[in-house]
């Protein structure tokens, strides 16, 4: 099967510091992939390159057979790459409904979702359990609900690739349980790329795991292979104590 996303020699240098350093990465359609690694490993920079928030220094990015290396971010979103922010960045002064309306009306114009706007918005809100909070200002929602709203906005984009940047950070255990169910659900219709510090979540959700360290891919494999990998143990699992 052709991969949905591939990167070749993808590099991002900031004044000599190579935050992402020659990454060759491949993601199959329908996968749930987790990217783990210590702080500063380049995970967020890597997905920022993929979604176009940051221009690469060198290397190529191919999405669904199309070279998107130099494509503006908003066009990548229209191709089906959705990114949910690590730092919650819903629109605090708009209602939850309007927050989801923004991505929903966009996909309606694309013709990728044929349902009507209201139905599309409510479907994304119901999916994330926020339907009864539709008219509350996003800034007044609890932190956990804002994280869910962020996901609802991603869902309303009808993405083919949903990039979740530390989605469970700051959530309670019960919220995390609900969240994992949601991600599994999403994975039935979209490929999921997940940056996550919480190893329980990673081991539970991911079918494959990519470990990054110092801007490079250190290891890649099934969860149990990663757990057993000595290099990973040294770089990450053994020394850092996250989540």
């Amino acid at each position, binding site marked *: 099967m052709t991969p949905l996303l591939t990167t070749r020699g993808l590099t991002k240098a900031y004044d000599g510091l190579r935050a992402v350093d020659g990454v060759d990465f491949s993601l199959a359609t329908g996968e749930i992939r987790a990217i783990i690694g210590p702080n500063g490993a380049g995970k967020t920079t890597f997905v920022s390159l993929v979604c176009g928030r940051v221009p690469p220094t060198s290397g190529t990015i191919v999405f669904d057979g199309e070279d998107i290396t130099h494509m*503006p971010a*908003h066009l990548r979103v229209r191709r089906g790459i959705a990114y949910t922010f690590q730092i919650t*960045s819903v*629109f605090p002064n*708009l209602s939850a409904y*309007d927050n989801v*309306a923004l*991505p929903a009306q966009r996909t309606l114009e694309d013709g990728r979702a044929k349902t009507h*706007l209201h139905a599309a918005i409510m479907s994304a809100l119901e999916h994330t359990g926020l339907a009864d909070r539709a008219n509350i200002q996003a800034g007044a929602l609890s932190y956990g609900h804002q994280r869910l709203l962020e996901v609802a906005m991603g869902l309303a*984009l009808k993405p083919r690739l949903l990039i979740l940047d530390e989605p469970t950070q700051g959530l309670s255990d019960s919220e995390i349980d609900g969240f994992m169910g949601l991600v599994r659900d999403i994975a039935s219709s979209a490929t999921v790329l997940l940056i996550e510090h919480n190893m329980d979540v990673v081991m539970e959700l991911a079918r494959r795991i990519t470990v990054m360290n110092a801007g490079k891919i250190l290891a890649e494999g099934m969860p149990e292979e990663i757990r057993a990998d000595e290099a990973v143990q040294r770089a990450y699992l053994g020394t850092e104590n996250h989540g």
Partner: protein
Amino acid sequence: MRSSALPPRILVLHAGVVALLFALNFVLPEYHHAVLARVMLLSVFAMGYNILFGYTGLLSLGHAMFFAAGLYGAGLSVYHLGWSIPAGLAAGIACGAALSTAIGLLALRTTGVAFMIVTMMFAQVFYLLTFYFAEWTGGDDGIVLSQEIRRFFVGDFYLNLTDPTTRYLLALAIFAIVLFATLIAVRSSFGRVLVAIRENEDRARMLGYDTFANKLAAVVLSGTICATAGAAYALLFGYAGSTFAGVQYSILPLLWVLLGGAATTLGPFIGTLFMYYVIDITSSYTSAYLLIVGIALILLVLFFPKGILGTIRARWAGWLP
């Protein structure tokens, strides 16, 4: 694609304001009747400014050039080319659309303070050009459209723009059209995108929006509305002069909108009306009236930073558009 139909109370409120202004035509004393006609056109200018400043979050300090583009586009084509009044109005609006497209393409390469400075510089260039071409524009003295030109037929319909009632009703018609046009625009999906850009442009981009294109559309819509106000002003009051291109006419719409309430549909009208009368009343008592205006503005910004209607919306009526 409308996000939803207009809720009845919003429709009633806006139609009520228009109806009230229509009724005032028959009861107002001569002086206030003339003031209100002027205020309605100037608040169209403010409504145009509000699209860009209030809804899109772009602070321009050069909107006098869009008002003046309409003013001169209409005034000069009628005065020098002998165009009819309706053709002059269309010319003024077209000039505003063309100028705002060009300015938008250039100025939107900058953001924040740089955007303010760039728009202000372009407006200064426009202002100085009105003197450079004084042979045609009359510079400071401006040009006066004769009374004969301003009495004309549209088909079989006789219009006399020197008649106060005709002027008032035409100003009201333009005011009503622009009011409902902005109401529909800001409640549409386009309006929602503008607010998203104001709140967090990077996030809007990551939802798939070409933020540059949307901001350009906002500049053009805003500039065209302001030019409509300028063109109507020149034709209804028969005068176009460089004062209207000066920096104070870039600052005034900002103050009107701040006073009335940024990002509210009726705020620009309330702010323009309020400030017009504050200046009017204070200047009849003292020559230092700008001092009093200044103090009033400082107090308002300190205690009502959201403006009159913005404060009402925040405290009592969250449904106000």
